[in-house]
């Protein structure tokens, strides 16, 4: 009988890899942010799964990690999308391959 953790960890690894593939292969800046969000969520799933099957779930350490991680990810999403909107207003594009100048 395999540990129930294996299934959750494999799902988390798969979602992390999908998010990484999306962040690395898409041209649109918003899609890169979506990939990063998926990777953060996969990490949260790992934290919750290890909390649930870890030795001391009553101390809630993993759960706290996941809750703070969700809060930081929300802040990251707001700032990232604000930056994308700002760049779009400036350069009229969200295509990352056309953003090849450091000078504005």
């Amino acid at each position: 009988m395999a540990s129930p953790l294996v299934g959750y960890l494999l799902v988390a690894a798969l979602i992390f890899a999908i998010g990484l593939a999306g962040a690395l292969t898409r041209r649109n800046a918003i899609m890169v942010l979506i990939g990063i969000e998926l990777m953060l969520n996969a990490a949260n799933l790992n934290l919750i799964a290890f909390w649930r099957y870890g030795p001391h779930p009553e101390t809630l350490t993993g759960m706290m990690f996941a809750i703070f991680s969700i809060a930081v990810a929300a802040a990251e999403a707001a700032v990232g999308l604000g930056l994308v909107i700002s760049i779009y207003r400036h350069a009229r594009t969200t295509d990352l391959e056309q953003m090849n100048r450091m000078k504005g």
Partner: protein
Amino acid sequence: MEVAFYLISALAVGGALAAILLKNLVHAALALTLAFLGLAFLFLRLDAQFAGFAQILIYVGAVAILVVFAILLTRGSELPKEGVFSKTWLVGLVIAAGVFAILGWAILQAGPWLPQATAAPAVTVNDIGNLLMGRYVLPLEIVAVLLTAAMLGAVIVAMHEKEKTK
């Protein structure tokens, strides 16, 4: 492992795959919502009710709406002529596949040493609140400051600057 776990995992992984592969950005954002919902159900299955409902409220509710707003504000619903994947997509795919291979190998190698199924921990939202106001009060305050600063920063960055456009 039960059927419910496989169904929820299929929802989460399928949503994530669709979010990455769909060409239309609005469709991708909706698929992303499905993936977040599947992950919230996985949290609930892991007896983490608070994190599961926080996931639904924050990700399915707020972040998905934020993504849709950003897509519409940048006219991302129009398909680009040169395709949605970058020129170096093969390199990215190989890196992602390599990362998954390493992670999967590590998980399967560690399989026999991982803990067996245990009884669900008796944790209430009351305990979470007590810990947040007790042991974790300093991180909570820092997160509060971080969120305030991030929201102000996002508004200032995305705000229209009329003086500069003249």
